[in-house]
């Protein structure tokens, strides 16, 4: 049965599950990045999530939701490097700030989280939707929830919806020209491949949904 609330302990477990999914998709993300960038996005994401996993292992079991997010962001930022290190790191930390004092993540908190991520990434990376970055997937996910009056739905439904929207948005970056980052001179040569950062984000949301819908099977991973 799907979880309807993610408390601090569950949040840690979920992040560890997401880390595993990212690691599993490493080669695919590298290949996407190779098409227009420097072929390392999978490596960098894996390293970043390893840093999260390690940090989570060191935390006091009583660490609350917001602190877990802040610590995860801090670990990602400190251990990764690259564009995505700062973008993801600050994004996760912004999520912690947005959920300050929250005990459990339900549908409304999940929407809060996504909105804080969108604001953070846009500000950190100085990007807007359509610039062919991770922001496109975040924006797609957040917009889908806002449009569907998400706060009244179950958590698993909401996460599913956002994951589907993120994936669709990531896919649509394949038709976007690149304005920032390594690939910005490529012009039309970049077309046809989705943005690696956007793809990562879609993978993360889908992994969260998978975990929420069968959490116990994965309890052992931490």
């Amino acid at each position, binding site marked *: 049965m799907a979880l309807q609330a993610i408390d601090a302990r569950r949040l840690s477990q979920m992040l560890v599950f997401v880390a595993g999914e990212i690691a599993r998709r*490493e*080669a695919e993300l*590298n*290949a996407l990045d*190779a098409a*227009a*960038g*420097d*072929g*390392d996005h*999978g*490596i*960098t994401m894996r*390293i970043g999530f390893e840093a999260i996993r390690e940090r989570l292992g060191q935390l006091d079991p009583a660490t609350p939701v917001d602190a877990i997010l802040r610590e995860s962001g801090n670990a990602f*930022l*400190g*251990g*990764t*490097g*690259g*564009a*995505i*290190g*700062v*973008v993801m790191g600050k994004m996760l930390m912004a999520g912690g700030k947005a959920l300050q004092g929250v005990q459990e993540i339900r549908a409304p908190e999940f929407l809060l989280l996504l909105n804080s991520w969108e604001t953070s990434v846009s500000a*950190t*990376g100085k990007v807007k939707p359509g610039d062919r970055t991770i922001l496109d997937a975040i924006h797609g996910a957040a917009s889908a929830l806002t449009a569907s009056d998400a706060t009244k739905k179950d958590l698993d439904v909401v996460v599913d919806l956002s994951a589907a929207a993120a994936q669709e948005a990531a896919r649509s970056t394949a038709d976007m020209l690149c304005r*920032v*980052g*390594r*690939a*910005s*001179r*490529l012009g039309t*040569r*970049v077309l046809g491949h989705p943005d690696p950062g956007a793809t990562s984000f879609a993978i993360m949301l889908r992994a969260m949904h998978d975990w929420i819908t069968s959490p116990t099977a994965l309890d052992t991973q931490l």
Partner: protein
Amino acid sequence: MKKLINDPRKVAAEALEGLALAYPQYLRLVPNAQAVVRKDAPVAGKVGVLSGGGSGHEPMFAGFVGAGMADGSVAGNIFASPPPQPIVTAAKAIHGGAGVLFLYGNYSGDVLNFDMAAEMLEEEGIRTSTVRITDDVASAPPERHEERRGIAGDFFVIKVAGACAAREGSLAEVTAAAEEANRHTRSMGVALSSCIIPASGTPIFDLAEGDMEVGMGLHGEPGVERARLKSANEVAEELVRRILEDMPELANGDAAILVNGLGATPLAELFIVFRAAHAMLVRHGVTIRHSYVGNYATSLEMAGCSISLLRLNERLKPWLAAPAQTPALVQI
């Protein structure tokens, strides 16, 4: 993938350790920072010049740390900018009280991480300024030159900034010198084969036998054109031609040139390219004051080369000619 490494994840760290062990007369490791600083850092009263970026471009950046060039350099993992904290740590290790200049290639990742480090240093009362190197002609059209990437031309900018700092320039002066060098530097490269990132183990692009990629970036970012591989003379002329188009004021002036190998191209070929570039520059009335030929900014074992040209004016000349003592450049 055949590499002389121990652990794909430790390449950057172990290479930097090796560098520091090999050249203790010039530099030392910074504890907990994947960075090196000149052995006598911090030099009191001197502006600290801090370079850095992803690893995999050796000897750039750490190989140019020492008297007359950079005071320190922070190394990220392969092709990944270092995170903010080690940048902060290295900046502190070279801060002699006169501020720190950040010098790095203009990549999204480096910008984000160095900017964040600058904020953190500011909070601790350490003044920084930043010059992002944008020499790669292939990476944006002239009207958007400030978006261009930094490639081998980093070398000239670090050389000039290092010399200006060594002559007791203030932070503003060293920053202006670096900006001036960057404004006068153009590079254009060509790749013949891909490198392999150790942690992924696969080539990051394919180039058919007989093809080359004009304008490919230092990390295998696609360039402006994929074309049939031509003779060294034709390739050299094409690269110089594109630079001259971009910086027409180069003609009939003084210049420094770097013919840079990307990693796997034999030095003999770089000399053949140099020979052709030299002939073409002479035809355009350019007087070559300094020549550098070799592997300065590589892309692991990528095959190919780049040509960088620095247009020299009376201000830049003495800085470029100034002495330097680093692992990868000793100049008297």
